[in-house]
């Protein structure tokens, strides 16, 4: 569209024609075939990188509010939600045009959040306020605040949307919250500095990573008992460098991926036997993880090497790294 500009001002008809051609081109691009995009929040650059899933190149860098961290997408993939922690709000972007659509109130210092599986409401962890804020994404109204432990961070929601799990870093607890009443049902003590909570698709396990504890607690949501505590050992890596953060489990529930922070590795774990199949070397200070929509790939954000790594899920191999902005924090991929 922008190339080969004609030397003379074109006629009105020609301009209309080219405009409609441009619209047609845009529509063609909006088609489902291999149009995957990966959105990456860059904490230190106050930007979001947009990576084309086919070419694995950064196609655009969007300026966001200050300190973008948690990032997620609406179930239809049309909207991208970003926590801009230092601006104390959630920003909503159109995934097709990359434009800011609106902002939502978040409470102070939003770090991570999770959408209800239906796409509404949004549950936000307020790191400085010991609260989980619940916001209606359509009206932008705060629906409720749930007091939790100190420094809330990780947010996981059950596939049926009935149970929310929030982790609080200093209190070292996973808080199970009933989404019908917005009340805490139970608090489960886990290891030091829990960062992320992730449900298995059959609702039978919640995985909670503990960054300082160096473990992942697998909790049965029905009984609130820890059924397994995973530890990690990597030859040639000191125990202190193993700091579990991001956790993702495949839709079939069989395989979990755990990002191990400054160990620069992602552990591949069988969710039934809890055997650790592999430690994939990705990038420096691997933080959060995201699947491609078809789950053929896993994307990892590497905060210190300023890139994302692409893992082929079928072969458990790291295939490529793509440089993004400074301190990439979170990622989400949409079709």
């Amino acid at each position, binding site marked *: 569209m922008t190339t080969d500009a004609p030397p003379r001002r074109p006629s009105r008809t020609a301009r209309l024609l080219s405009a409609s051609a441009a619209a047609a081109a845009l529509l063609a691009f909006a088609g489902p075939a291999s149009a995957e995009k990966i959105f990456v929040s860059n904490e230190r650059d106050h930007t979001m990188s947009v990576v084309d899933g086919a070419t694995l190149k950064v196609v655009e860098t969007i300026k966001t509010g200050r300190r973008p961290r948690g990032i997620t997408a609406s179930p239809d993939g049309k909207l991208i939600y970003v926590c801009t922690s230092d601006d104390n709000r959630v920003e909503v972007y159109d995934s097709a045009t990359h434009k800011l659509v609106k902002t939502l109130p978040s409470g102070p210092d939003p770090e991570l959040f999770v959408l209800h599986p239906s796409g509404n409401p949004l549950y936000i962890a307020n790191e400085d306020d010991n609260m989980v804020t619940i916001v209606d994404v359509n009206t932008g109204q705060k629906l409720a605040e749930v007091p*939790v432990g100190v420094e809330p961070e990780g947010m996981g929601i059950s596939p049926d949307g009935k149970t929310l799990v929030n982790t609080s870093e200093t*209190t070292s607890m996973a808080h199970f919250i009933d989404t019908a009443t917005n009340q805490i049902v139970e608090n489960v003590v886990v290891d030091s500095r829990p960062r992320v909570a992730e449900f298995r698709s059959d609702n039978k396990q919640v995985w909670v990573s503990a960054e300082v504890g160096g473990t992942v607690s697998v909790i049965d949501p029905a009984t609130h008992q820890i059924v397994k505590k995973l530890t990690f050992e990597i030859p040639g890596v000191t125990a202190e460098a193993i*700091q579990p953060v991001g956790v993702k489990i495949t839709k079939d529930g069989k395989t979990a991926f755990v990002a191990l922070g400054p160990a*620069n590795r992602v552990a591949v774990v069988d969710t039934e036997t809890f055997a650790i199949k592999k430690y994939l070397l990705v*990038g420096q200070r691997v933080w959060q993880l995201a699947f491609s929509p078809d789950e053929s790939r896993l994307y990892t954000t590497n905060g*210190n090497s300023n890139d994302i790594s692409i893992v082929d899920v079928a072969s458990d191999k790291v295939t490529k790294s793509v440089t993004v902005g400074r301190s990439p924090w979170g990622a989400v991929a949409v079709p």
Partner: protein
Amino acid sequence: MTIPLRRLTAATLAALLAGASLAPQAFAQGAQAPSAAPASDGPKTPLPAPTPRAPQPGGDRRAAPDPDWPCIQPKVGALSYGQMWSGAPLEQALETWRQDEAVADLVPVIVARRTKPEELAAELDTFAKAAGAEKNAKLTLLFAGAFEELNTTRSAILTGIERYARKQRTLSEKIKQESLKLASERKDMATQNSPEFQQKEQERDWDTRIYDERSQALTYVCESPVILEQLAFTLGREIQARMD
């Protein structure tokens, strides 16, 4: 909607006490298993009373204060090779890499910060090609050498930064004493115009200037360990990409 945490804790405790006598009854009536009790009963494990934030670990912007560590970046001690190497254990290679002439020649080149990425790629390609069938073993030796060199340099920088921080502390104390002394001696015009007083004042001003300039340089100095760690990781990635 906001409930103060203190009140919630009290309510939680009350619910806990009530729940202790009510739960078996409800269970006997076959209503619900205890684990599926309504949310209004409150959690079995209450939230603790509000606690101050725990000291933060390394790898976080709120690292616990260490007077000898002046950087915003968390202090990370020695690097471990597993953070950047997924190949075979390096213990033996770390002992022997210097004995290989080609490796010993190339290590200083690839660890130098002035070596550009494209030069690095070309050097590694040439080295891998020359190694022939021994490619994997030679590349392993090469990484071991680069890792050891970078780790040693990095450790020396860490020690240097701590020494720098101690010197700055001493200098800041000296400036404080000089200023206090000058203030106590600044009695009248005659004293202030005396060569001794002016010399002392100039000395204090010089010390302040040195302190300020060193403080500004700190931003760059503090980046050095991080840059070296990034370089070690990049070398690991590039070298492993050339292995079969």
